[in-house]
């Protein structure tokens, strides 16, 4: 396991444990990333990747350890302070589009967390599909539209640290390609991104570093430059 330590990490997680009720799901996660970096959390279903994101968001029953964002400790913060104080944008696995709200209402729902959120018009440029369905109810969107809306929704708030959970899951290849372009664009604009991904081919060209999670622990860290030489290991981790 790599032990490189960043001089000034934007997000630094140490020894993170998390519980759902009685069940102990995370067993000491350690990871870090600097501003403008993109890391992926790889692993099999149920390994604890989504739970890692949900723990950062305070969406688990109990968590211990340390979650520092720009040096500030977040482990004790109440759930509703985490997003604004950390300038986080969270895109949950099930996408979290509100069915009783229109596309526009969904977009406007999360309160701003920083000064430089993307204006609506720019978001509609980035996701032209959404512009045509502005007034449509959330329940009547396709999977791809829902995913784009879930990403657009957090870009509007001015979040700088994006936690994206399985954004390509179940989507058509053409949509996955669009999302890849969007993520690359976001990275070039300096967003810091944590990507939980099943689709390694999607994640590989985007990431600075990959964390492999198994049974609630980081079992391996692979820098992007070492991916080629680590393919055997990766295949082993990700094989079903």
């Amino acid at each position: 396991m790599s032990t490189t330590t960043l001089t000034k990490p934007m997000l630094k997680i140490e020894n993170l444990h998390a519980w759902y009720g009685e069940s102990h799901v995370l067993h000491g996660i350690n990871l870090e990333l600097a501003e403008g970096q993109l890391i992926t959390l790889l692993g099999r279903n149920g390994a604890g990747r989504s739970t890692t994101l949900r723990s950062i968001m305070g969406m688990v029953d109990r968590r211990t350890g340390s979650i520092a964002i720009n040096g500030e400790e977040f482990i004790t913060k109440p759930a509703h302070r985490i997003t604004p104080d950390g300038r986080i944008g969270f895109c949950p696995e099930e996408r979290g589009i509100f069915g009783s709200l229109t596309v526009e209402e969904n977009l406007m729902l999360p309160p701003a967390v920083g000064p430089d959120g993307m204006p609506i018009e720019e978001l509609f440029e980035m996701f032209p599909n959404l512009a045509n369905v502005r007034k449509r109810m959330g329940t009547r969107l396709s999977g791809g539209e829902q995913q784009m809306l879930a990403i657009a929704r957090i870009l509007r708030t001015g979040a700088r640290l994006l936690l994206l959970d399985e954004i390509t899951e179940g989507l058509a290849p053409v949509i996955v390609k669009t999302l890849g372009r969007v993520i690359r664009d976001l990275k070039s604009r300096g967003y810091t991104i944590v990507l939980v991904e099943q689709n390694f081919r999607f994640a590989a060209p985007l990431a600075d570093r990959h964390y492999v999670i198994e049974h609630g622990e980081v079992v391996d860290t692979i820098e992007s430059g070492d991916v080629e030489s680590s393919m055997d290991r990766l295949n082993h981790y990700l094989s079903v």
Partner: protein
Amino acid sequence: MDPMIRLILAQGMLGLNNGVFYAMLSLGLAVIFGLLNVVNFAHGALYMLGAFLALILYSYAGAWVGLDALHIGFWPALIIAPLLVACFGMLIERFMLRRLYKLDPIYSLLLTFGVTLVLQGLFINFFNASGTPYPGMPESLRGVVNLGFMMFPKYRLFVIIFSIVVCFVVWYMIERTRIGSRLRAGTENPELVKAFGINVPLMVMLTFGFGTGLAGLAGVLAAPIYSVSPLMGANLIIVIFAVVVIGGMGSIAGAVVTGFSLGLVEGITKVFYAPAANTVIFLLMVIILLVRPNGLFGRQG
């Protein structure tokens, strides 16, 4: 005008006047149920509390502070009483209901039922069970207006118009504004709404306060019409539940439209067969539940 039509219109107006209270109370109940999934059985008692606060402000508050000549009238009461009821509602939410959210909804129903009994008991103890008339009806709303087919009390006309405006504003706020979209989102997925940085527990408390405040407002409006009595809410709450069930649990528009309509139906039934007026609502409830189990405006669940 044909006397029969005249009679139907007249009874319709009186029915509408009852419908006002059905609509306002079921509206608050729907707001609370929609967001909190709590069946607020105390709603009738909070309506009664609103009426009593108006009465107390007018007849007692002055004497309590040593100013016998001070009568806090209807207009100030229309603002003060609902606010006090809302605060009381928020206290109930903050210190009692909040502990029960993780349990079966039957617990919150029982709790609010208990609150009802306590409130009724207290007021019976201090004011006895018979009604007290509210003397504070404003001068400007006394007298009658000629509607063409009947002479109608000015105050009742005011209550109908005022309530329609309140119901519309509440509906608009919830269905069309940013605050409303947060409430609706909070109903669907409170965890995610919290993760977006919205203080959901605070929002829930304020919503409960708002819903109960509406009950208090209805109570103040009712005070000059019906006599103020500790059991005035208990008599109404059963009808209100029928309205909410017919309209569709948690549907704002359903509560309002059904409330006014059932008032009308009840009033008009009096023209044809007066003894059935009290039963017709429940008969309708049975029929509608058989045909549309989710109520007229309920989402198919």
